[in-house]
């Protein structure tokens, strides 16, 4: 077993009744990695996570963890932890007993138990809250208890289901760094599920983008952000202008225009972020349909022969008036070439 294949899914097929949610997934996750499963709801990311946890039995394929086939291992015998989206704390137990729950079941007792529970609570900064009931804690605190409860079990893999979605903006930022810190300090292999690309980009070492049960792209946050392989990924990570490329023509639906410039071979589409579209000069013409001031920049919505285009330029530049014509350029060098488009 190599560290790069610490957790590996082989031809894993997951289904609900006759509906196949994830067909034949292959995926390797390295030891100590912090991985994000990113995708819109219904893409199979939560299903995959539940299968790794053992809460869902695969219809075929296998899951190996640290050299051991755990495909048929029941959930309560797997060295896998899961932090639920709702935290799933036991309402009748206080913070201390919540964290001690799994250890007690393992037969840990006395001083050993006490030390490990207190250490776990200290890691998440809740050592003063031992006697509180879950209902008396804030969402952020509940999440920390849930994290500590899983971490004291020393799982080989820790799964987190939408860990930041129930927190407010400020807490989210705090929890993000907290999760990263806990992961780096413990060295646990961590996989979190999210539909928020900002979260995935900010936290993960590696991102797995999923769509309709299939892996669309795997890469570092930089790769995903700068080099999306498909229109789906490009759209998901904020390229607002995504066009198909066909015989030298850029297309969206009915609209098409000639592309000026050359593209790498096997390019099926091109994508531009609003900021990479040149406004004020260039071979194309568009009509300003909307403008909005966004602090350092100003955003424009243009009606063009290619449909609507979102552009963005420095707010200190002169404003292009609403309804007026404006020249723009789609610079091929600034575009992300897409190897796949529309599922092809």
């Amino acid at each position, binding site marked *: 077993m190599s560290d790069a294949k610490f957790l590996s899914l082989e031809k894993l097929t997951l289904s609900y009744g006759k509906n196949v949610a994830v067909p034949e997934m292959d995926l390797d996750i390295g030891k100590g990695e912090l991985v994000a499963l990113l995708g819109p709801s219904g893409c199979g990311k939560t299903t995959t996570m539940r299968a790794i946890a053992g*809460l869902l039995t695969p219809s075929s394929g296998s899951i190996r963890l640290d050299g051991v086939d755990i495909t048929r291992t029941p*959930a*309560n015998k797997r060295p896998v932890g899961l932090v*639920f989206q*709702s935290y799933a704390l*036991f*309402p009748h137990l206080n913070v201390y007993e919540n964290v001690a*729950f799994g250890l007690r079941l393992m037969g840990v007792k006395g001083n050993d138990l006490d030390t490990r529970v207190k250490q776990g609570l200290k890691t998440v900064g809740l050592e003063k809250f031992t006697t509180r009931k879950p209902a008396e804690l804030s969402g952020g605190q509940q999440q920390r208890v849930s994290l500590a409860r899983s971490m004291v079990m020393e799982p080989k893999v820790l799964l987190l289901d939408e860990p930041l979605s129930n927190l407010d903006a400020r807490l989210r930022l705090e929890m993000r760094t907290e999760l990263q810190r806990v992961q780096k300090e413990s060295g646990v292999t961590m996989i979190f599920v999210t539909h928020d690309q900002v979260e995935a980009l900010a936290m993960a070492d590696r991102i797995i983008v999923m769509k309709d049960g299939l892996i669309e792209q795997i890469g570092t946050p930089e790769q995903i952000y700068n080099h999306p392989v498909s229109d789906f990924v490009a759209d998901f990570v904020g390229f607002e202008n995504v066009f198909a490329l066909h015989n030298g023509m850029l297309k969206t639906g009915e609209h098409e225009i000639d592309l000026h410039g050359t593209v790498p071979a096997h390019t099926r589409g091109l994508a531009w972020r609003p900021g990479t579209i040149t406004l004020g000069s260039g071979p194309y013409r568009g009509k300003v349909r909307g403008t909005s001031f966004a602090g350092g920049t100003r955003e424009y919505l243009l009606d063009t022969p290619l449909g609507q285009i979102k552009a963005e330029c420095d707010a200190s530049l002169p404003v292009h008036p609403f309804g007026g014509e404006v020249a723009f350029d789609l610079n091929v060098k600034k575009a992300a070439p897409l190897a796949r488009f529309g599922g092809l």
Partner: protein
Amino acid sequence: MTSRLFSPLVLLLVLAFLIGPFAIIIAASLSAGETLAFPPQGLSLRWVFKVFEIESFRQSFGISMFLAIGGTLMALILGVPASYALSRYKVPGAETIRTIVSSPIIVPGIIVGLALLRYFVVPFNTGILFALFVAHTALILPYAVRVVSASLTNLRSDIEEAAVLLGASRMGAFFRVVLPNIRGGILAAFILGFVTSFNQVPVSLFLSGPGVRTLPIDMLAYMEITYDPSVAALSALLAFMSLGIVFLAERFLGFSRYV
């Protein structure tokens, strides 16, 4: 404002209706006279003591207690797993099961009693006590299922998955995580079941037989023969017993949080 004057009056009337009968019974039971009457003729505790001397009351009290406690426990043993299955799994025909389980509430007791006598007790020649036990269990079951189902619905199911991932078996998760959290519901179901069974008249009326009678049936029979205040005294004692149970439940288990 009229409503200001009106509402205390309404409140008083409602209270009078609720507490009135209870007060009358207590007063009548303290009578020194020979017949059941209000206002009481003189004050005495003699009828209260008399209650304990009447052999058939002692016996039927025991039977009623056995039916109320045993029947309720049995209903919970059947009802808790049933509620759990109905709330957690996609049971085929769940609605039908719910309706069948609830039917003893809907069908008048007198019909249940007659039906049980005609088609259960007579053809199978079951013992009287056994028939009463089965009937009371069936009558309590709807309350058990309903009240426990309600508290299960309020309990998130992912805490069971959390328990399993922390090493508990499915069964272990139920006992360690589900049961402690529906404790209040079970207690509420127990008290409701106990009271329902203890106050049951129509079904017990059909199923009671020689030597085996529940307390309410025995009280009815007693009143047909004699008309002394001992029945009032017994009623008062029973009312205080109920109060005591509710008080203890509240004191030690915080009953009112669940009902």
